[in-house]
């Protein structure tokens, strides 16, 4: 039996099954949620290195629907399920503070199913459908606490997100109107044969904007600093760790490299969006005193890094320069993407642990937590060192690759900007460490205790990943995980031939 459809089917089925279970057994949702997430993780690990196309119901594309598993999708699936699993584990105790765990897990799994669907889907319309599933679930989860602030954030997110979704739908419709097909491989082939026209450019504009909003690239970022901090911590981890990357970055890269084809113009747009996000997000994070808000702005900045690096790779591809340099830039970007998933979800989980113990998100009211919460602070410090690019943690390696690639591609000023922003990143994460963990202990925190073990385990797990993920750059693991993902993008319009098989 083919495992590919199960990535979508299992979480969706579990999402609908959980609310039907009787409320009498309170541990049932925890168990089911965690089991599903764990199963997805096992499945994701099992498909490493595989490439496959699954055709729904035997209807061959371009007429039927297909799911595509290639290097990039595998990378996404692993990231989603890994962060998803740690988040559900963390939720067991953390979500006790909220009312309905049934609904929580149900929404959570809907979101996961939607993201898996986006990562696997081989046609434009299904990307939209899965994107909407994940988005709608995330709107609800952001407002899950039902307090004033959370509902407001959720509403803003809903409005801005819906605008983006609508634009994406319009973009999909325009593609269908002008090419008569929605299968991505087929569309790609048609574009190679017929060339771009005004309608397709219009559609590309709509899609780039829609996905940029989902990826929270400046100036489409405004929803994120409200939504990510307001959500419950494990949801913040999911949103910052994977949602913006799958719905935004992944979809953006897929359509720009494989469907429409990289052009210098498109590459420049990506580079600009990435650079502006990197700078603006970094500067805004510097001024924050709210632990989670700081992390949220930092997400904007870090996603900017990813898009910038991949954009540089795209520019090299489109001008037909050395594929090694392009591979280096894209590889650096994708590596940073998974690294960011690890350390940002770690940091958001740690914010949850701190809120759980101290009841505050304000850095000025924390202090001295190093001794009170040794595990949390140890893990969070590793996360902060990673994201600031300090060796031997994973962020250092992706930073290194991105800077080297930018210089190789002759984008010296961008390399310099990336370096300067990394100094700013270091500054605000050291500020966070100093005020939360190392600085003088605050009066309020005298009775603070470490969080329960089931909340520590996911953080420690992610911290271990942050330490070890640098090993992915070694030749063996790189050929298994990163290189197939890079190849999926650098092959560009050959995507059509690979998928359609002709």
């Amino acid at each position, binding site marked *: 039996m083919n495992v590919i459809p199960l990535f979508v089917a299992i979480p969706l089925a579990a999402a609908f099954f959980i609310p039907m279970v009787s409320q009498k057994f309170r541990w049932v949702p925890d168990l089911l949620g965690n089991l599903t997430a764990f199963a997805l993780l096992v499945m994701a690990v099992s498909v490493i290195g595989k490439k496959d196309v699954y055709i729904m119901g035997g209807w061959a594309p371009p007429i039927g629907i297909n799911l595509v598993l290639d290097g990039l999708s595998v990378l996404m699936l692993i990231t989603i399920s890994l962060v998803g699993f740690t988040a559900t584990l963390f939720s067991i105790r953390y979500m006790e503070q909220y009312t309905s765990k049934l609904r929580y897990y149900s929404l959570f799994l809907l979101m996961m199913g939607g993201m898996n669907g986006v990562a696997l889907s081989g046609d434009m319309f299904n990307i939209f459908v899965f994107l909407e599933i994940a988005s709608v679930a995330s709107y609800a989860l952001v407002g899950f606490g039902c307090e004033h602030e959370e509902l407001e954030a959720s509403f803003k997110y809903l409005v*801005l997100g819906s605008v983006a979704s609508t634009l994406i739908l319009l973009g999909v419709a325009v593609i269908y109107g002008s090419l008569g097909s929605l299968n991505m491989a087929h569309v790609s082939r048609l574009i190679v044969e017929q060339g771009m026209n005004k309608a397709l450019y219009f559609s590309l*504009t709509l899609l780039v904007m829609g996905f940029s909003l989902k990826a929270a690239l400046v100036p489409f970022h*405004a929803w994120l600093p409200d939504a990510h901090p307001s959500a419950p911590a494990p949801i913040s981890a999911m949103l910052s760790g994977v949602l913006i990357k799958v719905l935004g970055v992944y979809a953006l890269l897929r359509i720009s490299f494989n469907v429409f084809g990289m052009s210098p113009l498109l590459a420049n747009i990506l580079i600009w969006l990435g650079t502006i996000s990197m700078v603006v997000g970094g500067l805004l994070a510097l001024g924050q005193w709210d632990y989670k808000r700081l992390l949220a702005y930092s997400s904007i900045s870090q996603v900017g890094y990813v898009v910038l690096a991949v954009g540089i790779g795209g520019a090299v591809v489109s001008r037909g320069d050395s594929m090694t340099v392009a591979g280096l830039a894209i590889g650096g970007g994708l590596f940073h993407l998974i690294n960011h998933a690890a350390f940002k979800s770690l940091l958001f989980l740690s914010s949850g642990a701190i809120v759980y113990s101290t009841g505050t998100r304000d850095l000025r009211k924390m202090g*001295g937590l190093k001794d009170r919460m040794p595990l949390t602070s140890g893990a969070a410090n590793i996360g902060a060192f990673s994201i*600031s690019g300090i060796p031997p943690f994973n962020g250092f390696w992706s930073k290194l690759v991105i*800077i080297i690639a930018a210089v190789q591609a002759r984008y010296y000023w961008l390399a310099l900007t990336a370096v300067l922003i990394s100094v700013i990143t270091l500054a605000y994460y050291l500020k966070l460490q*100093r005020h939360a963990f190392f600085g003088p202990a605050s009066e309020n925190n005298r009775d603070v205790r470490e969080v329960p073990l089931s909340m520590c385990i996911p953080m420690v797990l992610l911290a271990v990943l942050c330490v070890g993920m640098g090993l992915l750059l070694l030749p063996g693991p790189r050929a298994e995980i990163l290189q197939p993902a890079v190849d999926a993008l650098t092959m560009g319009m050959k995507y059509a031939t690979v998928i359609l098989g002709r």
Partner: protein
Amino acid sequence: MDLMLYPIVLPIAVGLLCLAMPRRVKGIVERTALIVSITIFGLTVFLFSQKPLHWMWDANRFLRLDNLSGFVLLAVGLFGFLIVLYSIVFMRDKIYSNIYYAYLLCTIGIASGIVLANDLVLLAVFWGLSGLTLYLMIGIAGAGASAAAKKALVIVGGADSLMILGIAIVWFLMGSFTIDRISLPVVGLLPVIAFLCLAIAAFAKVGAMPFHSWIPETAEKSSIAVTAFLPASLDKLLGIYLLARITMDLFIMDKTLGLLLMIVGSLTIVAAVMMALVQNDLKRLLGYLVVAGAGYMVLGLGTGTPAGIAGGLFYLLNSAIWTACLFLSAGAVEDRANTTDLERLGGWGPVMPITFVVCLVSGLAISGIPPFNGFVSKWMIYQGLIELGRGGDGLWFVWLVAAMFGSALTLACIIRLIHATFLGQVARMPDEVRDANSEVSPSMWLPMIVLAGLCVVFGVFAYAVPLKHLIIPAVPGVSYLGFWSPGLATLLIVVGVLAGVVIYFVGRASNVKESEAFIGGELLREGMRVSGVDFYRTIRDFGLFGNAYKGAERSLFDIYDLGGRFLFYFVQGLRRIHSGILPTYLSWMLVGFTVLLFVFMG
């Protein structure tokens, strides 16, 4: 495993092991640290005797020990051992000592890695790691030091990012990461940027201006053993090692960049010494002297003449010795007096004779008084400058004056320091200290005596021992302009001192009038105390200096604070437009969409 890997792997492995140890086994951790550090020191001596060495991996020369890295490695081993020895007693009462030894050992391993690395990426990794351990070790002193730790890592770690950029450019131009295969002329924009990036990394590490501001702060706030080990000795060694490596090996220098180095060096010397002059805290004062020392080395390397470079490197070795020694004696004083405020110190000389003598010797050494090592190394730097002048450089005189001026002011600082701490009127001492024999324990004064002894030996036998075996092999083509014969000079100095003693006693036999001590024409009354802290206060009354000091107090010369203020301006602006109003956000989207549409369709 190759022997060259041991100084890197062994301390790091043991250090990580110590990190996992529970607090109960503190004694074992201390002993392990001591044994490992002795082993590493022995190993570095052995490796030094075997040089040149290299270690290949996958056809790349990853590690290399040549004449330059040889003596730096030796110094790393020596300082590691001495600091561990000193810490055994100094850190005894502090609960964090397990972590402290873990970090200390890791730092030794990382420093060996930097010195041995022959691959730029490897160098960058170790460089970043050393910044991390610096941060962690400063932070060990507790909550009070967390701000200083943050500042140190922002500056050092930020410079590390620039270093990566420099390395990326070098790779782009040369296609290689292997240091001994690279030789890049500094001509054109890219090589200059690459050079500046790497030089800034070195500047931040040694604290050359304008990247100096973390050092005085660290010296004041963090534990003295940490300061003596890291900013005062190890970071100096590593930073100047990198600077020497890039100026001598990696890049083919040109005149302008040498000029830049000399400007940075002279500015650092003069400004840091001026700041040291008015400090009221023993540790902070020494911190500024550390910064000034960095200036001499940068100046020496900037001359580009063999004598100047050799002088800079010799100064590096010597300054690591004397600043570590000064900090360790300051630590001994702090251990007894529980304060480092010069105002509240005084009269500790008779109570702590060993510390006093050691501090005096290293103080005279740093001021460049013959026959100590400071004189020889400064003399060599001056020679380098004069040689530069003969080569047709018109500005050599400026640098020479700056260096000599700095030297004189350093002596002034040291006199004030010695007076306020060890001489002068007796300050209030803790009761249990005053009566007993208050010298610190042998494991604390032993490292101090070793270092002070080195100050003397490296001065008196400068040409016979350190220069011949350590420095000259590392710098090709050194010739001496003026030969200074330290042995004879020492003899003359000793004879002169003896003669003075004889005259003193003979003169005393005849008529000497003694009276009560008085100050400003008035006899001292009971309870009145003049600490000697205000020796040079009048310097603030000069218009130019006064303004400079006021600026420094408002940290106008601090790149960290300035950068913070500059960015704050942008941050405030950006925060103001993030008003949280939905229609505003929607309008941004619209603007973004319009721009995209224009770009794609236009």
